[in-house]
């Protein structure tokens, strides 16, 4: 693994461990933002700029704000709980299974990997002729897979409606904030 990737990966690992161990939720919320930023850095190094963009904006930006918003409604410190063995075992076993799964994956950047031979060459060759825009990712998401993206927007809309229904927001919908019925 190249040194910069390795450094970012180690920092990510360290951040994750600290977040899991911290009892101060404010610090934990900030560190999750940092973890997102590190992940975004990794995505940039993997040439997945669009994904990195999303990770930085959502994970490091808005996600942190929402964490802090939730934090302002609760206490700042996590309750002390005794360490339980079974959850740790499950997590370790799952992690081990995932790592075992990666052994079958093609090497990082391997040009002979299956994924580079199935659809990708066609898309790279044909997108310019069919859609006439240079960003292949946008062409795939917006045009070739327009249905999927429409579905995703509906999912986001539904999530927003769900949050609005569950949490309400700013007491009253309109700006007549004179009376507040919530006790």
């Amino acid at each position, binding site marked *: 693994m190249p040194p910069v990737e390795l450094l970012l990966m180690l920092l990510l690992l360290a951040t994750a461990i600290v977040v899991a161990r911290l009892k101060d939720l404010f610090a934990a919320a900030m560190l999750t933002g940092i973890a997102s930023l590190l992940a975004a850095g990794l995505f940039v190094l993997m040439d997945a700029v669009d994904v990195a963009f999303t990770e930085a904006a959502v994970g490091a930006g808005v996600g942190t704000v929402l964490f802090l918003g939730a934090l302002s409604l609760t206490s700042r410190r996590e309750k002390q709980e005794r360490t339980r063995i079974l959850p740790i075992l499950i997590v370790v076993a799952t992690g081990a299974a995932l790592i075992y799964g990666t052994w079958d994956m093609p090497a990082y950047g391997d040009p002979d990997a299956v994924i580079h031979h199935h659809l990708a060459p066609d898309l790279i060759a044909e997108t310019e002729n069919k859609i006439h825009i240079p*960003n292949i990712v*946008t062409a795939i998401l917006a045009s070739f897979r327009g249905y999927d993206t429409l579905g995703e927007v509906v999912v986001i809309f539904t999530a927003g409606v769900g949050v609005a229904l569950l*949490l309400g*927001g*700013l007491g009253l919908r309109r700006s007549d904030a004179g009376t507040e019925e919530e006790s």
Partner: protein
Amino acid sequence: MRPPSRVREMPILRVVARALAPVILLFGLYVQFHGDFGPGGGFQAGVIFAAGLIIFALTFGAEALRQVVSVVLTERLMAAGVLLYGAVGVLAMFLGGEFLNYSALDPLTTGHHGQHLGIIAIELGVGIAVAATIMRVYYAFVGRRPESDGETREPSLGAEPGGRTS
């Protein structure tokens, strides 16, 4: 979290937020309309745009932001974004193509402009829906009050105007 009144007394935060927010909004628009050529697109643009507005709200209070973007407006824009996306698809059907076949949007040429127009339109729909949804979620969090403890704390993410002290 510091209460917003103390945030409002911090000149550095205020100045930086005031200077950064418009730049972030502009960058959001750039990501939105440059998505066909560079990285980005409607989703990222929507998030960045909403983040720019939220930074403003964090320093100057959600009440100040609500003067510009009301809660009802975010709800309407959420639906408008989805409807814009769907409308492009239906429009393509009326012009003789399949649902979401943007080439039909421009029957005169061989389809370049149709694809361009369609992608810009649906990305705009995505951007509007995402930005509005994030704003709405932010408002939802800001508007909540802590449930348990007796003393009514102010929601600290810049929820109320500075003059209000309880």
